């Protein structure tokens, strides 16, 4: 935790774009992930994919 407090914050934002935009506007180092539900939101397919990993 001390390393977190003593380092420059570099953020990966997954989900709402607004959060990344406000951080970017403030000059914070941020990379936005345009996340979409995996397996097109199909739960059966998703659990199958997870088993394959």
């Amino acid at each position, binding site marked *: *935790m*001390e*390393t*977190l*407090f003593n*380092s*420059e*914050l*570099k*953020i*990966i*934002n*997954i*989900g*709402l*774009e*607004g*959060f*990344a*935009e*406000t*951080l*970017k*506007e*403030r000059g*914070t*180092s941020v*990379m*936005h*992930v*345009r*996340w*979409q*539900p*995996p397996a*097109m*939101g*199909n739960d059966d397919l998703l659990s199958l994919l*997870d088993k394959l990993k």
Partner: protein
Amino acid sequence: MFIKSHILKNTFRDSVYLMRLSGTVREFEGVIEAETIVGTDHNKKFLRSGGLWTDEIETEAGANDLIIAVKAEDEEKAEQAIQSALDEMNKQVERENLLGDFVPRTFETALQNLSGANLALLSIPGRYVRREADQVLDAGLHLMIFSDNVSLEDEVALKQKALEKDLLVMGPDCGTAIINGIPLAFANEVKQGKIGVVAAAGTGLQEVSSLISNLGEGISQGIGTGGRDVKAAVGGITMLQGLEALLKDSNTEVVVIVSKPPDSEVTEKVLAAAAESKKPVVVNFLGGDLEQVRKAGCEPAGTLKEAAQKAVNLSRKKDAGSGDSVLKADEKLAGGEKKKYKENQKYLRALYSGGTLAYETLILLQGTISDIYTNLSYEGAEKIDDVYKSRANTVIDFGEDEFTQGRLHPMIDPSLRNSRIIEESKDPETAVIMLDLVLGHNAHPDPAGSALEAIREAKEIAQKDGRHLSFVTTVCGTDEDIQNRGEQVAKLEKEGVLVFPSNADAAVFAAELLSN
């Protein structure tokens, strides 16, 4: 009447964006109803039941597509509204350039492209959180989970994993944090300084950090834990980690803990950890046992304002101070208002967007006024049967699930609360309407302006009936917030709205207005 749809193949936008866009299209001239929504089966059922249905949606729209559906007075208006949505989306594409040319679709790719990444902020539907969060922790990043609807089992598993790796998991349902001076999600722009806060209460952290900043001191770190962290089932994992980190942190001289009363075993652990430190620790367990805190060698605070004031005093190497004198209502001001009420005007209607602030108000009202109803779980008040209809003295949190299903949080879109302000003004028994205006990143750009539109209408309704209404408000935030607290306050005061420096002050004044 004409219903028209437009399908954008292989297009995805996040839920907040789409709810905002739907709102913009609904305001377009001649539009009766509109939705911009992802074409999942669930959403298609929703459109069908709402009468926004076309053959095109039935045959063309799939889970990877975006649907714009509009019901308008005629075909031309429907087409214009759809075009307005498309124009708005093009504007967003320009805005996306702000995020850079490269926007990855997975955490893994982002990690490869952001060297030294040390924190991930997750705001995706709750049922997908575990999957992504596991990846984040396995990669050695700290995590803030904004999402709600994450199962207790997942929360415990993630926090235990994080603990083993000495990583922090803030949340789930963590709306606010300030790390290394950077405000995350809904946090406010506050001064940096030597006071560290760990909070299991979102607007509690916003109120305390803003008040500290407004008093001239600053925040070293503001760690959010999510409300469920302090339940026995989670065991206060994040609160204990956060507290320990702040006690060790060389830039933190005073620590503040804010939470609804934790489960007893968590309280004991937290107080025991705080007691071991030489740093002063101010504790506000909202409505909790102050004596227990004092016995543990910590500084108890009965309100968020008192917690902020005591932390500021301690950081200036002064005594914590009693803090009691700060909570005295201006009787002269109250007397002037009370004289204007008609005989049967006797009730308070407190309409909140911040859950912790609403909870604090319930605590402060208890004992001064009776017959209090609320949609929150609070022992000192009755649970209201119908959240859409006030009864006697009512305190409503519009951020609760019943108001936010499929809608934006009232801090972003206050329209539901604004309608309620007008409703309350029609009730001849309403004397006081109380509101919190919460500023900060990602919140409404002008909450005072938005509330004033409803307040003006409410005043007019009351005046026609010869009644005077008192509007008692608090503005949570700082002058450095994009909304600028000073400007927001001036706007409200110009139109006769009573604005108090803290929620506690507003609540005590409201209670005074209704006391005999």
